[in-house]
């Protein structure tokens, strides 16, 4: 028998698990549009977790962080990417090198590796249970798998953005009291990434008339 986590720990863990599940859903989904929507849902979950932590563990700075990430990651970034997608008139993500079922199994292995690696670190946190940290590392691992197996620019961009969600989740566990200015700097880093990826998508689409990266393997003179 294992010790039963408290209601607070159970709730936060359940939200963190949902963050990981949305990451897996991004890996499975075939439509670019729904991938971006899933990213918005994932960001919403991370913001909700920040609010729960702020309310229960009394870390008022997290309210500001939650509000900022809600505005940026749930509204602005998905809106920008969806707008870019509308211009590109591509609907379906480049099919990966693996079938969906194998993708999920590989991602499960990678996620599990991250999960158990964290267990060996013996990190303990004041505000969140360690399980959430393991889940955050799993999110990072799965988002790497998403970027590696999918061969289109949008999946890779969304994979990169959701990697940031994983890092935010981890920072909630390890350093919830991190000075707000640093967290905000992280968020603006994300904005830079959005601009760069948006630019990349535009340029790639205008040159190859597709969002798939498969066209890049050909040598061009």
């Amino acid at each position, binding site marked *: *028998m*294992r*010790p*039963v*986590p*408290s*209601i607070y*720990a*159970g*709730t936060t*863990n*359940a939200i*963190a*698990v949902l963050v*990981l*599940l949305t990451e*897996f859903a991004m890996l*499975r989904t075939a439509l670019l549009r729904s991938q971006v929507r899933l990213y918005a849902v994932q960001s919403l979950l991370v913001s909700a977790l920040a609010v729960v932590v702020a309310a229960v563990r009394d870390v008022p700075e997290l309210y500001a962080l939650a509000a900022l990430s809600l505005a940026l990651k749930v509204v602005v970034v998905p809106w920008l990417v969806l707008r870019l997608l509308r211009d590109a008139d591509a609907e379906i993500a480049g099919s990966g090198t693996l*079938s*969906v*079922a194998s993708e*999920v*199994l590989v991602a*499960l292995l990678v*996620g*599990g590796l991250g*999960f*158990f690696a*964290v*267990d060996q670190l013996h990190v303990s946190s004041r505000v969140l*249970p*360690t*399980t959430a940290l*393991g*889940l955050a590392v799993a999110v990072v691992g799965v988002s790497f798998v998403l970027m590696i197996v999918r061969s289109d620019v949008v999946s890779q961009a969304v994979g990169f953005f959701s990697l940031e969600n994983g890092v935010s989740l981890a920072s909630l566990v390890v350093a919830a009291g991190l000075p707000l200015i640093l967290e905000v700097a992280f968020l603006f880093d994300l904005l830079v990434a959005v601009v760069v990826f948006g630019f990349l998508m535009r340029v790639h689409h205008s040159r190859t008339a597709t969002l798939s990266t498969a066209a890049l393997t050909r040598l061009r003179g």
Partner: protein
Amino acid sequence: MSGMPVAAVQALQPLTVLVAAPGVSGFIATAEARMQGRRGPRVLQPYYDLAKLFRKESLAPVGASAVFLAAPVLAMVCYLTVPLLIPVLTSYGLPLGYMGDILGGGIILSLASFAVAVGAAETGSPYAQLGSSRSKTFAAITEPVMLFVVFAVALVTGTDLPYAMAATVRSGADQILRPSHLLAAAALFLVILYETGRIPVEAHRSTNEFGMIEEARSFEYSGPYFALLTWGSAMKQLILYTILINVFLAPWGLSSTRDASDVVLAVVLLVAKALVIGLVVAVIDNSFAKLRLFKITEFVAAAFLLAVLAVFTLYLGGG
């Protein structure tokens, strides 16, 4: 303790499932039809169907051996045995309830479906054989999901008795909110959708043979034998719903005494809870499309993911 004799309560468990199962199927069919704007069959229609089938003659294909005729009976016996092992009406373990654990119940359920598959393979009908081959192929990939659900239960309770899991869930909100419990319950629900032949996997009562998995196996049966098979699959559905409800989702309202009033209340509540699950299943049936046969592995991979994550979160920090 006063009230009904233990044996009577024990006998009531399979009897409840036996009597209520066609009604639950009928309710789902009616609810589904209403959602599509159709009138649909009566809720009691499956009972009339069974009564009619039991009066009809039955034929066996030429060359089919006794196995063909024994299969529906064996399946029915299995479906009558499983309710003895799981908490259908009582929150305390009945004497025969400790004959087998969750794995024991799982083996008996698989034995029933194996018997039906062998019976179908006895016939010369290509569709029946297709169904039995498909159902065994996909059973092999849903089995790991069930195993991981059982592992999660075993890690939570230290045993794999369904009564122990139900008692753990009842013990407090902290047990319900832990992610391992939520994930294991969700994985079990997906497996139940597969096992009962519901929408993402198979269109229930459809007439398209190429999409059939479980349904195709009863093609060559007629009369009382066909009645036993349909009744059996309705019972399997209610048994699986009972496991989901009384072990994972809502193990409240079970009788904790042997008083006749408590036991009757437990019967009513069980049926009511099963109808709620049935309503959810009807909504799913109406809102998703059937998956292509080769996409079923993706559906099962999702269930597997949930079940494995349940075990992972348990290992780290007692999730």
